C-alpha cells in the first residue's frame, strides 16, 4: 500500500521543492479574486510536462491544494471568494475580519485546510479503489436526489428569510436553464441572443454575483474596509488551537463530507463547503452566531473544501473520471505523461501513485507554515492598501478572470450584469448564495431528473427508478431529516423552555 519506500521517494529534495513551490504558487493565485483553482492548475500544468510522472503529480497536487486554501484570503479580508470553493468562507470570515479578528480567521482557515487536506489525502491513500467502486454506483437518479439535498440547504442559507432564500434558489435554477438543454436540445430563454446559446458560465456568474456587489459597496463610504489600527497581525495560534479542539467533531464531519463530495464527479469544493457549512450550522449550539463571525463556520468550510482535493483524486485516478474541474486538467496532464488511469494504476504503477499520494500529504503539511506566513503578509497588505487602489485592482482581476475562462468577452458582460443584478437584489434582502446554489445544482438536478425519467420509462417503472434504489433512499432520508430537524429541534426547545418556566 503506502510503504516506507514510497514515502522516502516523496522526500527527495526535488519533490520537496516542487511541493513547496506548488503550494506557494497555488496559494498566491487562489488568493486573487477572479482567478480560480482550475486556472491555477491549468496555467502551471505545462511546466510539469518535462518532469517525472510522480514529481509532476506532486507539483500539480500542491498547486491545487494551495489554490483551494488561498481562496480564503480574499474571502476573509475582502468579502469576495478568491475561488468558488471559498464562497462559504465569506459568511463568517469577513465578519470576523470586520470585528478585528482577521488574523485569527486566517489562522483558523490555514489549520482547517491542512486538517481537511490530510483527511482527504488519507482517504485517497487507504480507500481509493473501494470508494471509487461506490462512486460508480451513483447513477443519474442519485445525482438528482443529491442535487435536491443540496437545494434544501438553500433554506438555511437564506440569512433570516427562508422564503427569500427559496426565491433566490429558484432564480438560480432559471439561470441554469438558459441555453441549449442537455437532454432534448431545446433552446431556452435566449431570445435573439446568440451569446446565450452556451448558457450562463458558472465561474463568471460566481465572480459577478459575489465580487461586483462588494466592489460597489466599497466605493460608497470613506470608512476603511478593515480596521487599519490592528496592523501588527499575529498568528493567535493558542486561541486558534483552542477553537479547533472545541470544534473537533465539526472538523471531522466537514472533512469527511468534503472528501465524499469530492469523490462524486462534477461536485467540487463549492458544493462541499456549502454542504459542510450548512451541516455545521445545523449541529452547532451556537447556530445563531453563524453568519456573524462564528469561527466554527470557517472550520467547516475550509476543512471541507481542502478535503475535496484528496477526494477528487479518487475517481480521477481509479476511474479516469475527474472528480472536480482541476482534476480534469490533471487528467490531461497524466495522459501527456503516458499514465493510464484505472484500477490497475494502484498495482501496476504503484510507485508513481503512492509516491504522489505521500507527496500530496507532505505538500499539505508544508501548507501550514507557508499559509501562516503568506496569510500574515496578506493581512498587513490588504489592510494597508487604500480603496482607490484596491477597488480598480480587484475589478481588473474579475474582468481578467471571467474572460480567461473561455476567452469569451460575453462572459465578462454576463459577469457584470449578474453582479449588478445581485447588488440590486441584495438591497432588497436577497443574498447571492441561494442563487449560486441554484445555478450550480440546477443543471445537475435537471440532467439527473430527465435521464432518470428516461431510464425508468424504459424499464417500465419511473417511480421504482426514483424511489427504489438503496443509495437514493439513503439520500432521501437525509433530505427529510434536513427539512424536519429544524422544526423538531425548535419544537423540542419550546417544550424544554415551557417545562423550565
Amino acid at each position, binding site marked *: 500500500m503506502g510503504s516506507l519506500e514510497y514515502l522516502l521517494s516523496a522526500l527527495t529534495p526535488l519533490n520537496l521543492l516542487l511541493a513547496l513551490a506548488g503550494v506557494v504558487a497555488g496559494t498566491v493565485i487562489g488568493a486573487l479574486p477572479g482567478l480560480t483553482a482550475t486556472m491555477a492548475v491549468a496555467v502551471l500544468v505545462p511546466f510539469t510536462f518535462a518532469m517525472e510522472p510522480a514529481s509532476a503529480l506532486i507539483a500539480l497536487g500542491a498547486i491545487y491544494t494551495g489554490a483551494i486554501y488561498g481562496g480564503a484570503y480574499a474571502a476573509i479580508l475582502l468579502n469576495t471568494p478568491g475561488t468558488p470553493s471559498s464562497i462559504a468562507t465569506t459568511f463568517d470570515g469577513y465578519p470576523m475580519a470586520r470585528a478585528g479578528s482577521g488574523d485569527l480567521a486566517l489562522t483558523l482557515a490555514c489549520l482547517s485546510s491542512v486538517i481537511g487536506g490530510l483527511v482527504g489525502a488519507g482517504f485517497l491513500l487507504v480507500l481509493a479503489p473501494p470508494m471509487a467502486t461506490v462512486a460508480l454506483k451513483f447513477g443519474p437518479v442519485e445525482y438528482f436526489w443529491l442535487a435536491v439535498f443540496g437545494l434544501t440547504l438553500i433554506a438555511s442559507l437564506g440569512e433570516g428569510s427562508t422564503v427569500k432564500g427559496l426565491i433566490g434558489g429558484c432564480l438560480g435554477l432559471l439561470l441554469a436553464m438558459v441555453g441549449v*438543454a442537455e437532454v432534448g436540445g431545446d433552446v431556452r430563454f435566449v431570445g435573439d441572443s446568440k451569446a446565450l446559446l452556451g448558457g450562463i458560465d458558472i465561474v463568471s456568474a460566481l465572480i459577478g454575483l459575489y465580487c461586483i456587489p462588494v466592489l460597489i459597496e*466599497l466605493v*460608497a*463610504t470613506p470608512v476603511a474596509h478593515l480596521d487599519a489600527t490592528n496592523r501588527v497581525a499575529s498568528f493567535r495560534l493558542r486561541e486558534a488551537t483552542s477553537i479547533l479542539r472545541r470544534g473537533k467533531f465539526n472538523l471531522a464531519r466537514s472533512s469527511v463530507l468534503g472528501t465524499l463530495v469530492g469523490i462524486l464527479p462534477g461536485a467540487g469544493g463549492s458544493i462541499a463547503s456549502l454542504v459542510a457549512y450548512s451541516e455545521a450550522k445545523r449541529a452547532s449550539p451556537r447556530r445563531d452566531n453563524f453568519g456573524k463571525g462564528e469561527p466554527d463556520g470557517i472550520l467547516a468550510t475550509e476543512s471541507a473544501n481542502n478535503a475535496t482535493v484528496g477526494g477528487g483524486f479518487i475517481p480521477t485516478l481509479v476511474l479516469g473520471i475527474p472528480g472536480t474541474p482541476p482534476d480534469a486538467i490533471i487528467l490531461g496532464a497524466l495522459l501527456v505523461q503516458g499514465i493510464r488511469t484505472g484500477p490497475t494504476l494502484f498495482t501496476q504503477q504503484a510507485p508513481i501513485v503512492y509516491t504522489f499520494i505521500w507527496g500530496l500529504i507532505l505538500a499539505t503539511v508544508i501548507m501550514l507554515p507557508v499559509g501562516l506566513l503568506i496569510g500574515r503578509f496578506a493581512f498587513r497588505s490588504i489592510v494597508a492598501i487604500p480603496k482607490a487602489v484596491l477597488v480598480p485592482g480587484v475589478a481588473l482581476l474579475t474582468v481578467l478572470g471571467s474572460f480567461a475562462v473561455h476567452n469569451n468577452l460575453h462572459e465578462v458582460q454576463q459577469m457584470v450584469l449578474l453582479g449588478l443584478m445581485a447588488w440590486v437584489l441584495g438591497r432588497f434582502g436577497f443574498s447571492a448564495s441561494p442563487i449560486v446554489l441554484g445555478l450550480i445544482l440546477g443543471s445537475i438536478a435537471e440532467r439527473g431528473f430527465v435521464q432518470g425519467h428516461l431510464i425508468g420509462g424504459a424499464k417500465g417503472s419511473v417511480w421504482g427508478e426514483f424511489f427504489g434504489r438503496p443509495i437514493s433512499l439513503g439520500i432521501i432520508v437525509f433530505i427529510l431529516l434536513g427539512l424536519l430537524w429544524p422544526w423538531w429541534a425548535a419544537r423540542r426547545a419550546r417544550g424544554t423552555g415551557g417545562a423550565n418556566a
Partner: protein
Amino acid sequence: MALGAAAIWAARDFSDLGGVFPRAVGALLIVLGALYIGLTLAGRTRRVAEIGGANLRRAAAALTLLAWAFTLEPLGFLASSAGAMAALMVIANHERWTLRRAVVYVASSALVLIGLYSLFKIALQVPLP
C-alpha cells in the same frame, strides 16, 4: 411572480422533457412570490435595514463596470481597462486629492494593469482583445 409566469409562458414552446423543469420552477416562483407578498401584508417579514453611503458613487461604479465590459472589444483591453480603472480610482477615493497621492495611486494601478496584462497576454498567451 411575473418571472415565474414568464418562465411558464416561454416553456409552452419547449418539448415535454425540456419544459418540465422550467414549468416546475416557474410555478414554484409564483407560489413563493405570493407567499412573500402575503407575509409582507401580514407584517411578518423583516424590514431590510437602510444602508448609508453615497448612492451617486455606487451608481457611478456600476456604470463604469458596465461600460468597461462593453468597451473591451471596440477599444481594446488596455485602453478600456485604463479608463475604467482611472474612473474607479476617482470614485473610490474619498480623501482630498494631492499631487503625491495622485502620482502614487496612478503609478500603482498602472503597475498592476501592465503587470497583469503582460502575465496574461504574453506569459499565458491569453488572447486579450
